């Protein structure tokens, strides 16, 4: 939220409109021939917006990578339309990618945008509202003809709108300059125009002092097989960069210093990628193969894509005919002794519900991932939401408790996957992981892990000499043994019908059913004994405690930090485990007068906490397909403190 606040500005918390000649440290950028002022910023937020065919996602991903590579902390928010190719130039087709980079730890992609690249009028119309006053607005002037702005619903040229005076507008003939840069390469106009995103990227790199090398390497690798295209993209990137260097229009440039992250080797990692890698890592830790069965659905498909590339790491992937087959095949794989995993989003999870019921009855390990999106039904398929918590907790038939874990940041999906795997194996149970569209597509720097940092995950399949084997005999955690086909002497049949306690034979006996329902519930409830204690940021006891879960962690943590820094006594705890809830949660809640639960749903965790702890809970609810702004949570915190 600290839009363009030069680092020595008096209040770090308020947006400081950047003006030329601000009392900033004057830098001499080593790489440039023309010396321009470089103001040091604590952080900056840049958004690329254009038509869905304009390559904005690529531009954003590149800015993410280079910003991470200079040592900034980074958080991103890709935002794409539901239609693959909505009519060109219309608002429905606008695709965006927001990158927040900072010289300190940050937890959100930023509330307000400091620099907006608008490749056409539709992109301007849909994104201008998020640009901070005084922010930089870069537009492709060639794409603002009358026809263009009419398509976006304007009745006059938006560039001539006096309201734009509130921003620093840099109007560049991006299309012309791009075509110029590649004119002797024999490209079609269409091919040439496809490089425009790299012009904007280059220009942003100049303005924010980003290194070109990582992107040059990326271009060489990606377009290596088509030298003319590679050369075109390279030239256009350089053209954008040099344009910044030479143009009179840009007077002010910036630098954002490296953040103080824990030492180590880092890379940029997106949520879905982190989840896939966490699964691969868990497979190694457990010496158990990963069999992934999926069906395409936004925003979970990238998990399938990522894993489908990883057979060389021992992964098997299977694209099923539907969501039901995906979960059923995963169950089949687990019965065979490997780990079956499936991922989907809300509507697909609904279809898997019956399979989850079976997995609970079979007491087999299984991992089901829900990358949540706006619902119900097809809802807002490309936007984020947290409205499937009830579904995860209760969305099955019968008494059917399963462990539910939620990732808190894009890279945290890695840890969550390993944790889910550990629980699934140790307790012989299906486990649900909740991610969401924001976490899945967002990226952040990730310290590269060494597997030796993790405890192994022991997997035991009883051997043929097992004495007194009974399929449903339980260990001290109430988990049954994972006996697998192929093992002589242990032949047994399992199924969806109720089991007799320990023999596993079909039983219709009422008393036995009661016992089995209780045992299955107790088994899951017992998992909480192994949780680490809850951590609380802020005062140990007091007036207001924020409780968050899942992808809202970053916004809530940022808001609480801001409140604490401005002398407001609020605390924050974050829940990774949604079922069973941590054993110490009741105690922690009891230390505060007021509990505030912000969620991207209508108050589902708030409902659960009220029911479990008989406490009044203040729910902060948002269902707009976007994460919380930090500012709105800061405001909620202030209000909660003032109420009596």
């Amino acid at each position, binding site marked *: 939220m600290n839009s363009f606040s030069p680092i020595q500005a008096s209040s770090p918390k308020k947006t400081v409109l950047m003006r030329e000649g601000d009392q900033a440290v004057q830098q001499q950028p080593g790489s440039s021939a023309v010396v321009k002022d470089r103001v040091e910023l604590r952080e900056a937020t840049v958004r690329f917006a254009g038509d869905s065919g304009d390559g904005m996602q690529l531009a954003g991903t590149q800015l993410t990578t280079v910003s*991470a*590579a*200079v*040592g900034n902390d980074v958080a991103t928010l890709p935002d794409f339309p539901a239609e693959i190719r909505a009519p060109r130039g219309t608002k429905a087709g606008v695709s965006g990618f927001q990158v927040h980079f900072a010289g300190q730890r940050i937890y959100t992609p930023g509330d307000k945008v400091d620099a907006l690249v608008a490749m056409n009028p539709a992109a301007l119309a849909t994104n201008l509202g998020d640009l901070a006053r005084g922010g930089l607005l870069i537009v492709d002037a060639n794409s603002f003809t009358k026809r263009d702005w009419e398509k976006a619903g304007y009745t006059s040229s938006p560039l001539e709108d006096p309201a734009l005076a509130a921003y620093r507008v840099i109007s560049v003939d991006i299309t012309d300059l791009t075509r110029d840069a590649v004119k002797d390469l024999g490209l079609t106009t269409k091919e040439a125009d496809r490089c425009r995103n790299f012009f904007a990227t280059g220009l942003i790199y100049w303005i924010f002092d980003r*290194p070109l090398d*990582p992107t040059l*390497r*990326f271009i060489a690798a990606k377009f290596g097989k088509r030298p003319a295209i590679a050369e075109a993209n390279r030239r256009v990137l350089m053209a954008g960069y040099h344009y910044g260097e030479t143009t009179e229009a840009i007077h002010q440039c910036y630098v954002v210093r*490296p953040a103080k992250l824990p*030492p180590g*080797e*880092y*890379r*940029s990692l997106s949520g879905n990628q982190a989840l896939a*890698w966490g699964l691969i890592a868990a497979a190694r830790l457990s010496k158990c*193969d990963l*069999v992934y*069965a999926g069906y395409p659905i936004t925003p979970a498909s990238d998990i399938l894509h990522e894993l489908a590339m*990883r057979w*060389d*790491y*021992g992964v*098997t992937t*299977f694209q*099923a*005919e*539907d969501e*039901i*087959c995906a979960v*059923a*095949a995963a*169950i*089949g*794989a*687990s*019965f*065979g*002794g*490997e780990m*079956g995993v499936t991922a989907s989003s809300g509507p697909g999870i609904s279809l898997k519900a*019956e*399979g989850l*019921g*079976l997995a609970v009855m079979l007491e087999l390990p299984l991992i089901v991932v829900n990358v949540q999106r706006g619902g119900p039904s097809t809802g807002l398929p490309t936007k984020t939401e947290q409205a499937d918590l009830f579904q995860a907790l209760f969305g099955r038939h019968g008494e059917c408790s399963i462990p539910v874990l939620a990732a808190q940041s894009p890279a945290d999906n890695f840890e969550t996957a390993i944790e889910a795997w550990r629980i699934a194996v140790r307790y012989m149970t299906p486990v649900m992981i909740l991610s969401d569209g924001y976490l899945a597509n967002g990226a952040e720097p990730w310290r*590269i892990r060494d*597997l030796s940092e993790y405890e192994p995950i022991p997997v035991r399949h009883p051997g*043929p*000499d097992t004495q007194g084997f009974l399929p449903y005999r339980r260990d001290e955690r109430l988990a049954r043994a994972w006996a*697998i*086909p*192929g093992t*002589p*002497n242990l*032949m*047994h*049949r*399992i*199924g*969806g019908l109720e089991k007799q306690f320990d023999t596993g*034979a079909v039983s219709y006996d009422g008393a036995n059913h009661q016992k089995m329902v209780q045992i299955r519930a107790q088994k899951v409830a017992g998992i909480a004994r192994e949780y680490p204690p809850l951590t609380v940021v802020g005062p140990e006891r007091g007036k207001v405690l924020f409780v968050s879960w899942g992808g809202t962690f970053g916004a809530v943590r940022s808001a609480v930090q801001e409140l604490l820094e401005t002398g407001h006594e609020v605390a924050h705890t974050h829940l990774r485990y949604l079922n069973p809830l941590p054993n110490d949660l009741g105690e922690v809640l009891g230390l505060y007068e007021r509990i505030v639960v912000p969620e991207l749903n209508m108050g589902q965790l708030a409902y659960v906490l009220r029911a479990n702890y008989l406490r009044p809970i203040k729910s902060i609810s948002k269902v707009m397909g976007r994460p919380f702004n930090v500012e709105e949570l800061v405001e909620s915190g202030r209000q909660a403190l003032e109420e009596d």
Partner: protein
Amino acid sequence: MSIDALLETPQLGPNDYASNQEVRWCPGCGDYAILAQVKKTLASLGLPREKTVFVSGIGCSSRFPYYVNTYGIHSIHGRAPAIATGLKLSRPDLSVWVITGDGDALSIGTNHLVHAIRRNVDINIILFNNRIYGLTKGQYSPTTPLGHPTKSNPYGSLDNPLYALSLAIGCEATFVARSIDVHQEHLGMVLERAAAHKGTSFVEVYQNCVVFYDGAWDYATDRDSKFETILELEHGKPLIFGKNRDKGIRFNGVEPEVVALGNGVSEESLIVHNEKAEQPTLAYFLSRMHQPDFPEPIGVFRDVLRPSFDELVDQRRREILDRIGGPRDLDRLFREGETWKIGDGASQSAQA
């Protein structure tokens, strides 16, 4: 090694495949006969019990896994082929059987059936067709004949029935066969052939439900009529049927035609069965022969060899891993693309 394991020799008899569960089908149910033949087949194949898995969905027939002493899953209505597919992905070494019924396979689970067959997963699917929902007590199924009154359509079914074999052949099935619960020898032969086939074996068994649709297959089992209503297929042999083997089937354009042999009509004019035909055209043609116009063929309609899905998956898995000498190190994965080091405040960019 335990005594039991030592005794695990190919000399197992059908009874060794019986589980300790009491069989709970209605007395007289056709399922008993099928169970007996399956156990016999397992014994004759000499398959280790622990290497065999029965997967079923829901319905009377789906209780089957409880009654065989192998591994088994009694799963969800219609999902057995999907579970079996996943099992074969993780364990291509197992012999996997799917036991299903006309409601389970052709109504709620059709999608999985279609895709397991077209993938040619190496499983044996045995569909017990009794033309009715038995477990739920007598509603019409996708194979109930038009007009047949049931509890859920007392005025007679209006649903056009589905023919299991036509569907399977349309899904590119590599092995398709049909038999009848009480034709013990024939059923045993068909099951053995199904088990021997690599890839999906699809077998429809006419099964009598004594409670809810008794006599559904009387025409096919009746001592007197069966020779006129059933035609036993034999590879390389002309299509001949009748008590006196005096009738045959020949082409009349693209339609089948029943002809009486003799009077100038010779065997040479009849269709010769070829279960190995590359194209499934003949198999499909045979699957369209229904009572009362034609005798219904039983036996192996089609038996061709194609790589099975699980075999292809396993092959690719091995090829990839063999080429690189085992699964790659995770360090390599984590360092793909741009990485950088952060030390004491200093930062540098590196490329993996």
